[in-house]
């Protein structure tokens, strides 16, 4: 029997290759995700071990606001003297190193790196870590050295100049040196670095001279690091964080991993999806393979083989394919991760100081999954085939006649429950459970949809087919697609899921966008807004946009004088500035703003709820009603608020307002902001025009005022609305990329099914050629089959996703349901393209069928 199996394997090379391909794809995706994650992870670890290798103990201030990644107040130089008496200390170094040194590139735009910080540091000379590659360190106030990563990114050279934005506006420096690191890389995990002389670094990065970001201590040989740490912690008290070098390394690596986590999640989501799709593919492929062999198996059974032997032979075949294909898949996975690593290094500017890390246990698991799924995929149809009575099986296509009643009933139950859940949520009969009802409803609905697809294909395929297949070859293609509803269903499953997600996300995102831009235009009275990217969202408590102060990053700001000058321009009725930051309240973090409320009130359409909106000093605030409620405060109370620079202080609440899209949280005076916010400069400026002024002229004049600031632009209302809405773009695009990959796999799935179906129907194709179909007719027929399937899958997915999205919009209480018809049409177009691409190879094959060989084909 084994010998017969092996012979059979060789005889069906093409089919097995297609089955193997399905396994290879699935395993490749999973193992690529594993290897990439492991590689990046150990790369980060190794970077941060190097960074902190010569630190025994580090001293920094405890942050005023939030967790580890937020702004930390500087350490005064006086602490160095305080520590001078500690016996265990061998040496103390004051470090200046802070995120927010944004270099301006040759194109006048700020050089952006996705994720890693843009550090401004004080030059310490060549240490064990830093090695000059060219030039020297900075000695004068207008000189800097930069790391090689930045030099490469921005094309800077020793002897040239570099413009840098820091806490102070754009300043030009001379580049006198370029340095790299002892591990041979030009950047630490992708971060860019600008090294100033110490006083300049202190002023630009920390806001004042005579302070440090942290102190680095070396312990005497006899003193353990932990002992020294505890001694210093006791000496300095609560206001400081004292950590050993190892703790610091762990912390910094963890910070770096926050970026890695996003990559990991994306990769895992991708591999999970690919695994799922891969399983679909494998199952489908094997069920076709076994169906094709049902006749052969029946013949063997008729010749006296026992059922166990038949199933056994299919399993041996599957095991061979599974092992071989999984091995190939793992090899390809490693190759793909090499590519991914290169892409990521190019994207982030980071070079990982490690080679490819291959996590053997993980890969063994991936291998096991590949083999196991293949075996299961083969076993199910083999068992089914072995139960078919030999005579029935020897007659052709017994497998196609199976009834759909059971699967349809099985699908109707979850479908009805799912619809009930969604309806319950939309009609608001389930109260607080509506999100659970919606989520559960969507999941159940999806399960129901999957099981109902075969039955749906019976009804819908002719409809779709009529749209596409008007001629006889087209009609034949449609009939072929409708031949085996189960197979069609499982073939289009990937497309249904993918386009379902895309459609749902599209509808939700578009509705959110519409909602946000509507809010912006109702709330905002100003005609022009001066701001950097994403600031307005931050001011109103939204998230998204580029990194801002709250993420430990510096947000784009401009000088306060810009607003004053703007107010004096002809055609301008008034201008006012808004300062933006994140503060800590007893109940957690909150956005905070500052500005002249007498003007802001009208510009932002603020509604006074209680008290007054006029602040008479830096220790008075107004607070929005939501925050008041959440904190249990009332107007007239004294509230404790921690600002990034000022720390915990008491403020008197003089009034409250209704929060809106542009403003939420405590509002302080501009004086308080200058002193206590992370950036002393305003981040938003509002300009109101005189009644007869020309928007374009005034906009040009105001733009002129911020011309030297590459991060800040002047937008009119429509632009602002678009900008605010654009914060959904990044999430949406990431999702689309992810789904794009699964569309690719979906296409491969259709190709696979089509190719197998074509093989299966070789005799029919020969007959069609014999009775006079041209090659072009054959191509037409196969393309029609593929198109009908992909359009069917696409429509089903988009319809389901669209409805689920609409339900979400309704439950979330968004103002209006906006359907992005264009995007949906584009997605449907993608499905059509997928169908066309999938038909390429199979249709060529069908056209090339040799009539005589096909007629003699077994």
């Amino acid at each position, binding site marked *: 029997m084994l010998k017969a199996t092996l012979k059979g394997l060789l005889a069906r090379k093409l089919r097995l290759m297609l089955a193997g391909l399905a396994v290879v794809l699935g395993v490749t995706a999973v193992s690529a995700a594993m290897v990439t994650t492991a590689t990046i992870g150990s790369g980060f670890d190794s970077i941060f071990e190097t960074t902190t290798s010569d630190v025994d103990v580090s001293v920094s201030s405890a942050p005023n606001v939030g967790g580890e990644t937020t702004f930390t107040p500087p350490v005064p130089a006086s602490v160095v003297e305080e520590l001078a008496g500690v016996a265990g200390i061998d040496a103390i170094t004051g470090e200046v190193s802070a995120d927010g040194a944004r270099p301006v590139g040759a194109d006048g735009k700020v050089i952006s790196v996705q994720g890693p910080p843009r550090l401004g540091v004080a030059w310490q000379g060549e240490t064990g870590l830093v090695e000059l590659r060219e030039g020297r360190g900075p000695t004068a106030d207008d000189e800097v050295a930069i790391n090689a990563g930045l030099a490469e990114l921005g094309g800077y050279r020793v002897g040239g100049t570099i413009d840098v934005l820091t806490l102070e506006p754009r300043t030009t420096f001379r580049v006198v040196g370029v340095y790299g690191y002892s591990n041979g890389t030009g950047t630490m995990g992708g971060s860019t670095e600008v090294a100033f002389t110490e006083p300049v670094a202190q002023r630009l990065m920390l806001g004042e001279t005579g302070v440090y970001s942290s102190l680095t201590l070396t312990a005497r040989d006899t003193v353990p690091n932990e002992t020294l740490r505890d001694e210093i912690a006791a000496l300095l008290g609560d206001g400081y964080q004292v950590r050993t070098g190892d703790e610091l390394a762990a912390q910094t690596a963890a910070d770096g991993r926050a970026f890695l986590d996003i990559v990991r999640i994306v990769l895992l989501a991708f591999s999970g999806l690919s695994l799922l799709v891969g399983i679909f593919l494998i199952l489908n492929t094997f069920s076709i393979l076994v169906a094709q062999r049902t006749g052969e198996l029946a013949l063997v059974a008729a010749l006296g083989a026992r059922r166990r032997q038949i199933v056994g032979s299919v399993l041996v075949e599957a095991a061979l394919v599974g092992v071989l294909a999984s091995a190939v898949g793992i090899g390809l996975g490693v190759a793909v991760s090499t590519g991914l690593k290169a892409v990521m290094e190019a994207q982030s500017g980071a070079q990982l100081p490690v080679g490819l890390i291959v996590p053997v246990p993980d890969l063994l698991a991936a291998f096991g999954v590949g083999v196991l799924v293949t075996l299961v995929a083969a076993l199910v149809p083999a068992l089914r085939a072995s139960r078919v009575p030999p005579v029935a099986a020897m007659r*052709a*296509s017994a497998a196609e*006649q199976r009834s759909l009643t059971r699967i349809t009933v099985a699908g109707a139950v979850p479908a009805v429950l799912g619809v009930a859940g969604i309806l319950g949520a939309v009609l608001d009969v389930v109260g607080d459970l509506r999100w659970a009802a919606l989520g559960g409803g969507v999941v159940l609905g999806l399960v129901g949809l999957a099981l109902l697809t075969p039955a749906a294909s019976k009804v819908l395929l002719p409809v779709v087919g009529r749209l596409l297949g008007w*001629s*006889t*070859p087209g009609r*034949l293609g449609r*009939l*072929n697609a*409708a*031949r085996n509803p189960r197979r069609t269903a499982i073939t289009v499953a990937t497309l249904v899921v993918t386009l379902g997600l895309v459609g749902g996300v599209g509808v939700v995102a578009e509705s959110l966008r519409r909602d946000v831009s509507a809010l912006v235009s109702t709330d905002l009275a100003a005609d022009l807004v001066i701001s950097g990217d994403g600031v307005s969202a931050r001011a109103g408590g939204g998230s998204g946009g580029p990194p801002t102060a709250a993420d430990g990053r510096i947000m784009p700001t401009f000088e306060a004088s810009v607003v004053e000058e703007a107010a004096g321009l002809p055609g301008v009725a008034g201008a006012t500035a808004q300062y933006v930051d994140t503060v800590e309240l007893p109940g957690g973090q909150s956005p905070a703003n500052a500005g002249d409320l007498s003007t802001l009130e009208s510009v932002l359409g603020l509604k006074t709820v209680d008290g007054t909106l006029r602040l008479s000093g830096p220790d008075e605030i107004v607070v929005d009603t939501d925050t008041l409620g959440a904190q249990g405060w009332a107007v007239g109370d004294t509230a404790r608020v921690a600002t990034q620079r000022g720390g915990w202080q008491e403020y008197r609440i003089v009034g409250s307002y209704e929060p809106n899209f542009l403003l939420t949280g405590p509002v302080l005076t501009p004086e308080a902001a200058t002193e206590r916010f992370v950036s002393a400069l305003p981040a938003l400026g509002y300009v109101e025009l005189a009644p007869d002024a020309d928007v374009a002229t005034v906009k040009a004049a105001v733009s002129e005022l911020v011309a030297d600031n590459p991060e800040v632009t002047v937008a009119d209302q429509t632009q602002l609305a678009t900008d605010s809405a654009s914060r959904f773009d990044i999430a949406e695009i990431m999702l689309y990329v992810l789904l794009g990959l699964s569309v690719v796999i979906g296409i491969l799935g259709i190709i696979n099914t089509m190719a197998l179906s074509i093989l299966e129907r070789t*005799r*029919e194709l020969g*007959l*069609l*050629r*014999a*009775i*006079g*179909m*041209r*090659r*072009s*007719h054959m191509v037409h027929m196969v393309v029609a089959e593929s198109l009908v399937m992909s359009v069917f899958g696409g429509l089903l997915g988009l319809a389901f996703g669209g409805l689920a999205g609409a339900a979400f919009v309704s439950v979330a209480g968004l103002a209006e349901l906006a359907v992005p018809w264009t995007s949906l049409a584009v997605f449907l177009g993608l499905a059509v393209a997928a169908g066309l691409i999938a038909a390429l190879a199979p249709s060529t094959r069908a056209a090339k069928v040799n*009539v*005589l060989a096909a*007629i003699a084909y077994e």
Partner: protein
Amino acid sequence: MTTVTQETITGLAARAVGVTKAYGAGAAAVTALDDLSVDVQRGRFTAIMGPSGSGKSTLMHCLAGLDTVDSGEVWIGETRLTGLNDKGLADLRRNRVGFVFQQFNLLPTLTAEENITLPLAIANRKPDPAWFDTVVDAVGLSDRLTHRPSELSGGQQQRVACARALLPKPDVIFADEPTGNLDSRSGNEILGFLSRSVEQFHQTIVMVTHDANAAAYADRVIFLLDGRMVHELHDPDAEAVLDTMKALDTFDSR
């Protein structure tokens, strides 16, 4: 393409002139057709017989434009097949040649009626309703038109295939052992239908068969041996055919 009238200059529906066809190369080469010339008269029922491997199917495939020849010429009516491109051959097969194979003649997705009209449908032509009814009546399928092949018996399936071959009024219908898979009653029905189409509709038919009784339905029987035409009989009875076959067998095993 040239239009072909019923009355052609030669009066021949198809002919092979000095056709040679070999499979394989070198020492392993098999000569399937060896400088063979055959004329197929219009409106006649021709049977081809011979031992297994004598080249019957090969000859039929070459005549029908399904296969190419190594040398010599093949004509359908006044159209020379040698030299036609694939599109030309496909169109010729659709409009001017009919086929009935031993089995697997029908598309399982189409009903009997759709299978019958398929060649016309591919060419975007509508069948003449009267002619369609005549053909369907002749094969006795009027009440089976909406059935799919899986719901028809083997004999009925072969009759559908015959109707399909007849409907476009081709120059010639080729049938390769059309009764090979059938019991003698169903087989006789098919043969009766084929000979009636020759008599009543002046259809030209070429049929390969191993069965002396089947060959007796034909107007003329051609005997092949090793790719050559070795004998022919006109208006034969089963007896004569059997005798010739016996003679060929001894000749073969000599």
